[in-house]
């Protein structure tokens, strides 16, 4: 099933928009070899959503499209304004190549990919893009994209201390809410915010069930499908995602008892894995390890915490959103390293995981810069740790495999 999906995806790419631009010459997803032939019809909605997205049938909606980056941008506010949020984070070698025509080679691959997509006209149906000031490349991305599309720059600052910054964040989110309402001439308030929060909270509820199921048995929903679901959530209608993910969970949990995972279970932290750049999960799984949990901004960081509403006033709701999206953020751009370390250690202990893989996508320096501190902290707790730095190309899969197999051998000895 997964192989069939990838064939469809490749066919779409080769015939599709990128191909017309003459920029299809390397598809990183080709490196995926651990895929299963097993049928999982529940995943079809997600596969089709990706195919549709690649063919620019972004969503089946009349709602205006609002692009955004990073988990600190509150999807709930976009949804409350009856707009369709699309997370634009992209790690696709096709688009990085296109992006290098307008940006330097040695910068963040996400920025390059996004530039490639915008400058090629892929996102011409979008009304506006919300760019957060979370890291320097994103800040400059706002300026790089401004000749092509309207930009809203949302800068929460880099201090993640809620008590110090609650008022500032509330103002920034309120300004954003007011801006969207005015820009799209839409009247929204408390009621619409509550409805949007209910949708994302429902998603959190389903995601938590999937996450916890995979910590016990990662094979129940394998890593490929798990990250496909995460990626599809970037652009799928949230209600459709919730219904489809619930189905996947129900099917997987029903089969749970029949499956076993004899491989060491690892936590994947660091740079987010975004389709089609699945090289890292492919090599990890082929090396005999199982990704049983992750701490990434695209999945755990975005979905795990609900919006906790204390008071159902507009102000109370907006504060609850800042608490979830900024104070609760695990983005390394913010001052929250201690929180990240504690989260890794707690997750490993809570789910009885065997080790931690910390993934650095080359040129994403904010993740890389904290590697040594995390390594030391985990060592003190006797948590086996390996950090890996790689890029979007496929040439180093042999080297990566040696590292992951050695890590597996180490974990197997330790677990005896």
């Amino acid at each position, binding site marked *: 099933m997964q192989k069939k999906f990838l064939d469809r995806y490749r066919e779409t790419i080769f015939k599709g928009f990128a191909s017309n631009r003459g920029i299809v010459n390397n598809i990183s997803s080709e490196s995926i070899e651990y895929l299963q032939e097993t049928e999982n019809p529940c995943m079809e909605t997600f596969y089709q959503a990706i195919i549709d997205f690649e063919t620019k049938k972004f969503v089946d909606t009349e709602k205006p499209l609002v692009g955004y980056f990073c988990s600190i941008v509150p999807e709930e506010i976009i949804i409350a304004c009856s707009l369709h949020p699309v997370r634009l984070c992209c790690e696709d070698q096709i688009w990085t190549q296109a992006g290098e025509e307008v940006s330097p080679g040695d910068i963040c691959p996400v920025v390059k990919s996004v530039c490639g997509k915008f400058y090629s006209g892929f996102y011409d149906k979008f009304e506006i893009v919300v760019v957060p000031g979370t890291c320097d490349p994103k800040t400059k991305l706002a300026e790089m994209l401004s000749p092509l599309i309207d930009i809203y720059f949302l800068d929460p600052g880099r201090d993640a201390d809620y008590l110090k910054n609650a008022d500032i964040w509330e103002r920034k989110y309120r300004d954003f809410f007011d801006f969207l309402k005015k820009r799209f001439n839409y009247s929204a308030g408390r009621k619409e915010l509550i409805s949007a929060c209910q949708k994302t909270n429902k998603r959190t509820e389903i995601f938590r069930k999937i996450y916890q199921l995979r910590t016990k048995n990662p094979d129940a929903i394998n890593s490929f499908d798990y990250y496909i679901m995460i990626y599809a959530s970037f652009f799928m209608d949230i209600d459709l995602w919730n219904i489809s993910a619930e189905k996947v969970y129900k099917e997987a949990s029903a089969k749970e008892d029949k499956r076993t995972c004899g491989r060491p279970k690892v936590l994947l932290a660091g740079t987010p894995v975004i389709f089609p750049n699945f090289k890292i999960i492919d090599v990890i799984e082929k090396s005999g390890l199982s990704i049983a949990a992750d701490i990434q901004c695209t999945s755990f960081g975005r979905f795990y915490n609900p919006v906790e509403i204390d008071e159902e006033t507009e102000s109370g709701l907006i504060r609850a959103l800042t608490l979830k999206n900024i104070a609760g953020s695990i983005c390394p751009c913010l001052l929250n390293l201690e929180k990240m370390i504690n989260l890794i250690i707690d997750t490993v202990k809570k789910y009885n995981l065997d080790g931690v893989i910390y993934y650095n996508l*080359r040129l994403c320096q904010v993740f890389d810069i904290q590697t*040594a501190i995390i*390594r030391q902290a985990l060592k003190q707790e006797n948590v086996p740790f390996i950090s890996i*730095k790689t890029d979007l190309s496929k*040439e180093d899969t042999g*080297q990566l495999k*040696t590292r992951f197999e*050695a890590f597996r*051998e*180490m974990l197997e000895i330790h677990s005896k």
Partner: protein
Amino acid sequence: MKAGIDIGSVMTKCVVVRDTQPVSMTMSRSGPMPEKIAENILMEALKNAGIEFSQLEKIVSTGYGRHIFSSAHKTVTEISAAAKAAFHLSGQKACLIIDIGGQDTKTIEVDRDGEVVDFLMNDKCAAGTGRFLEMMASVLETDIYGLGQLALKATKPVVINATCSVFAESEVVSLIAHNEKKENIAAGILNAIASRISTMINHFKRESPIVFCGGGAIIPGLKECIEKVSQRNIQILPNPQFVVAFGAALS
């Protein structure tokens, strides 16, 4: 009798052991057909030891080509194999291994039970690996052994700033163009790699003795360079190029 075969990116090595003693060692460049080379050197090693193929109880392959050697009964990574051998060769004591191979440089922490507890390797970039040294030696029109010999005669080693092999090569070419003595450039190259290794060493506990293996260990003066930069004593393991193959045979 057991055999360990280390199919590396540059050299393929074979060690045949009786109990835990090496009885025969052979080596050849890996080349474009590493499996064929591996078979050849295994046969040669058996011949040198005067034993038949059928007398082998087990063949264990390791190194980059570990999965392509179909005659192997088992594969292990070069990290586990190095740990096995180093623990055996250093008298069953905890140690920190430096292994400079063709494509990878590794530092491996082995505990008092002989188990790998942590390891660090270079990333995709070749800087700090045997490949880097080969590239630099080639610019100086010598091989890695000659590079070490040149470095020993240096009077005033230059400082190589680049951490990237490609940039370092440009820097070396530029130094040659400025009539810098080859000896001083060679010493600068060894210092650059020693500095990288030293950084890796410092990630680990200071109490464990350091042992050195891999092709990098045969370069004259490199051990001393690393000792000087890291301020630590280092012991080169016997037959350093064969250590990983030996470890595979013990696995």
